[in-house]
């Protein structure tokens, strides 16, 4: 009898935990949940014309994703902002990962932390011959840019969703505004 009770309790606990896990999986994620999944990692690229930015890895996403984000002060047309997809190709730091990339489709207008710009999905041809998706994001404030590139094995749509959700967390919004001079 005791054994049966123990099995029943174990089943109930397991069921409850599974339910919680399933709920966590399907419920809309709040900004805090999103933020919790991303851990800051060291900037993985050698020095170039711009100071290093910040790099993060999402281990809580369906597939691991990395995002690299940095300001480029004074690198944007002060009047037109990020005007077209060619500008995303030029500025969004995809070449940090690989010089060989091709857009998957025309980009879209995007808004991140009150900054307007464009996002575009790419197919990256990696040095080892592997291919995977990446998302380039370029948004501007006056003459300054914030650029981000996200890469991972996930589908481009998911990369974009996760990357944008992360960039719009309170932590990243605060950092973005400070990095662009607080203005």
């Amino acid at each position, binding site marked *: 009898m005791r054994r049966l009770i123990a099995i029943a309790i174990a089943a109930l606990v397991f069921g409850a935990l599974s339910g919680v896990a399933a709920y966590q999986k399907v419920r809309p994620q709040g900004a805090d949940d999103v933020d919790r999944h991303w851990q800051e990692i060291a900037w993985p690229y050698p020095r*170039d014309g711009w100071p290093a930015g910040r790099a993060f890895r999402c281990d809580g996403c369906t597939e691991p994703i990395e995002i690299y984000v940095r300001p480029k002060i004074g690198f944007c047309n*002060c*009047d037109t902002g990020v005007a077209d997809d*060619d500008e995303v190709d030029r500025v969004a730091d995809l070449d940090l990962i690989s*010089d060989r990339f091709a857009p998957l489709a025309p980009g879209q207008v995007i808004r991140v932390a009150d900054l307007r710009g464009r996002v575009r999905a790419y197919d990256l041809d990696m040095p080892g011959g592997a291919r995977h998706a990446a998302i380039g994001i370029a948004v501007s404030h006056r003459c300054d840019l914030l650029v981000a590139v996200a890469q991972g094995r996930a589908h481009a749509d998911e990369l974009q969703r996760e990357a944008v959700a992360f960039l719009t967390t309170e932590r990243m919004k605060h950092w973005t*505004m400070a990095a662009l001079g607080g203005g």
Partner: protein
Amino acid sequence: MGGRGSVALLSISFLVVAGVAAAQQQVIGAPPEASNMRLVGYNDLQARSAYQPTIHHQGDRWIAYIGHHGGSDAIPDPVNPMTGKAEPNGTSIVDVTDPAHPKYLHHIPGQEGKYESGGAQMVRVCDGKSLPKGDRNAVYLLRAVGSEGHEIWNVTNPENPTLVTRIGEGLKDTHKNFWECDTGIAYLVSGAPDWRTRRMTQIYDLSDPAHPVKIRDFGLPGQEPGSTGAVPTELHGPISTGPQGNRVYFGYGTDKGGILQIVDRDKLLHGPAAPTADNLRYPEISRLTMSAFNGAHTTFPMLGMPIPEYAHDKDGNKRDIVMIVDEAIQNECGEPRQMVWFADVTTESRPMMISSYTVPEASGNFCERGGRFGSHSSNESMAPVYYKKLAFIAFFNAGVRALDIRDPYHPKEVGYFIPSITPATDKRCVTLEGVERCKVAIQTNNVETDDRGYIYAVDRANTGLHILELTGEARAIAGLP
């Protein structure tokens, strides 16, 4: 030390600190700072932000044509006192025959828009008699008019210019053109709408200025339409040595990722024109890739320079040199130092950087003065008075700097002139922790020389045109009386 001694020491320290602070900031009414250079004349250019000056000997007159950036937030379209109308910044035409009394003749309005987004920044001038199919009595001005394209004006009567033709439309941008006056070939810095870069080259035959003929588009592989992958640094401007020299020196970049590209002019003009990666590579002889920290605004060739130190060497005593000038773009030293580089391109396939020059920051506390500090451009006149002897560098808040370049392996500053600010000098701001803080400082943007040896410095912050001459040691180097 007693109490009185301490007080005295504190007072002296305070005065020293106050003096240093005062030296950092320019003040209206203060005299210019100068060494071996002297102010001859001045014009306010209607308080318009200035880019390229070109000085042309026209009949018995000397005329300065000066391109402008767009207006400022405070004054988008300054009033032209000669017409009484607000006009978007374009091209100023100034008679500098008497350099002590320059006379403003005319303003040709440019594209609406502020700062880099408006105006008509670039000007080049050719006589009709030198162009193969030009009107022998005419003088032509070629100017870049923002995204509106390029224009050619007949400036035979500089008081009353007339539009000849327009070239290009719907461009992303235009910038620092070059026009060969003896052939009419023009290298127009444009942003063709289907190219992946804001600035590339459109080559035209403008030997008959009224009837432009397109030759080809040109750029670095990866910038052409339909290409993928990383987009190379955008063009800033080319300088051609014409059919005799058969080389075009292209400078790419402003303050980052600079490239000097050496191109075979004949292959460029007569090679396959379709914008494919192979066709773009075909005329390239070599390129010098600079540090990611520096760009290439001006690439000024000085070929066959005798190097005094190598005079007794059995080989290599003459060198082909290209002076490369970066452009500073950030206010108050917000980027790596932009400066002047000298490349030895004698062995063309292996160009090598041999020396550099910058203004010592501490000599004027220039990072504290406000606005940009660093180089922007050099004079481009190849008139004998200064060519291969002295170069003049626009250095923003450090004014104009005169360099002795007779030994380009060891360039040496021999003079400078930092103009005074005026009530028209515009502020330059930085944002610190969300708060905008502004300072007013001279922003010498471009410099040019004429065949007589006068030096023309123009200001990006609306201060106007300063006409200068050399004195002392610097004047002796040029052989001027």
